[in-house]
């Protein structure tokens, strides 16, 4: 949000000059979020296709879906992909649901990566207040993962 890109016009209002390069922070955040969203949606799509294509897992899905619909799944822990190691093991076997979970993990990691990159951008511009602000957020995030 820099004022430099706003140019007052003679009519009293102002026009936005889109030809000006976006500030480094906005650019960096947009790049990180764009990569995260693209990568994760590619993984999600691949995972769904692999799941639906694999004969055996189609049967598994057929069994699971009515169960979901009728509320029979009262034990949320039924998915075997609840640790990063399990997801990586599944992905190495090319399992569809594991690919989906990798996509989910990339999606979850994206905002955290965005905060980490912001720390770097503010460090480069030596904006001490915002280095502190973003580093604090990153610390709380990482701390919540360590505690959770």
């Amino acid at each position, binding site marked *: *949000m820099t004022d430099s890109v*706003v140019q007052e016009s003679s009519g009293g*209002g*102002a*026009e*936005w000059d889109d030809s000006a390069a*976006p500030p480094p*922070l906005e650019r960096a*955040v*947009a790049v990180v*979020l764009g990569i995260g*969203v693209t990568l*994760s*949606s590619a993984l*999600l*799509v691949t*995972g*769904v296709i692999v*799941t*639906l294509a694999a004969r055996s897992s*189609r049967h598994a899905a*057929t069994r699971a*879906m009515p169960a*979901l*619909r009728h509320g029979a*799944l*009262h034990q*949320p*822990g*039924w*998915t075997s*992909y*609840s*640790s990063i190691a399990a997801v990586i093991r599944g992905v190495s076997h090319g399992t*569809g*649901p*594991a690919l*989906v979970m990798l*996509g*989910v993990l990339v*999606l*979850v*990691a*994206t*905002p*955290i990566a*965005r*905060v980490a990159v*912001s720390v770097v951008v503010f460090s480069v511009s030596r904006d001490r207040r*915002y280095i502190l*602000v*973003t580093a604090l*957020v990153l610390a*709380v*995030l990482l*701390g*919540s*993962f360590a*505690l*959770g």
Partner: protein
Amino acid sequence: MTPLEFTAALVGVGVLAGGLGALLGLGGGFIVVPVLTLVFNVNIRLAIGASIVTIIATSSGATVAFLRDHLANLRIGMFLEVATTTGAVTGAFLGSVLVPRVLFVIFAVVLAQSAVAVARRKHLEDRPPPPPDELADRLGLHGAYPDQARGRVVTYRVARTKTGFGLMYAAGAVSGLLGIGSGSLKVPAMDLAMGLPMKVSSATSNFMIGVTAAASAGVYFARGDIDPLLTAPVALGVLVGAFAGSRLLPGIQPRLLRLLFAVAVIVVAVNMLVKAFL
């Protein structure tokens, strides 16, 4: 319903949640949880797991567009994230002790009130000038954005940063405690206390909720609450919907945006009441 039809229905739910979530700064969890549990009979924990992923997908997907439109104020977002993340951790800690039902009722009332206040709020131009705020000056929070609906650039000054920060801490604590209503408290805090334009409040809330949700996602993942076959179609739908919703925000009339927001937050408040009495 065949698995394929069920998957298609989940994508549809995702598109709706992502679209409204992106437009209103709410993240879309308020649609995913009730629809999955009430319409599709999905287990509540799996539905909440899917909604956490929904919120992150909406946030990341929509923010890319909001940065291009200069609607999200990153400095405000990053500063307030200090309050929301620490609040969320506090709330999660308190929540493991106990969650009295009366809290749900209290916050349902608070939400309904702030929804009405947001809906009745005057245009930026029709309000008295905001009081000067030294903290906002020092943090460089003031901004401007090109408003397509009005065909000109709107400049705004941020007021009452400390109050906003305190409210954001409360918003974070409530979402950590009750697992609901994160964006629905963030937008009123920015709109009513800090005096941001409605579109900037919505876009900046969108930007922030991804981080708040990511802070709790690890817990749900480790518990096995994130089901791949349920989450993938919803998340993909959300990404498409968030893109569409983010296209609508620059051109929408602020008055209409306020009304839509109020209606959606009333839905969140009703969700809370249902949770209190179930």
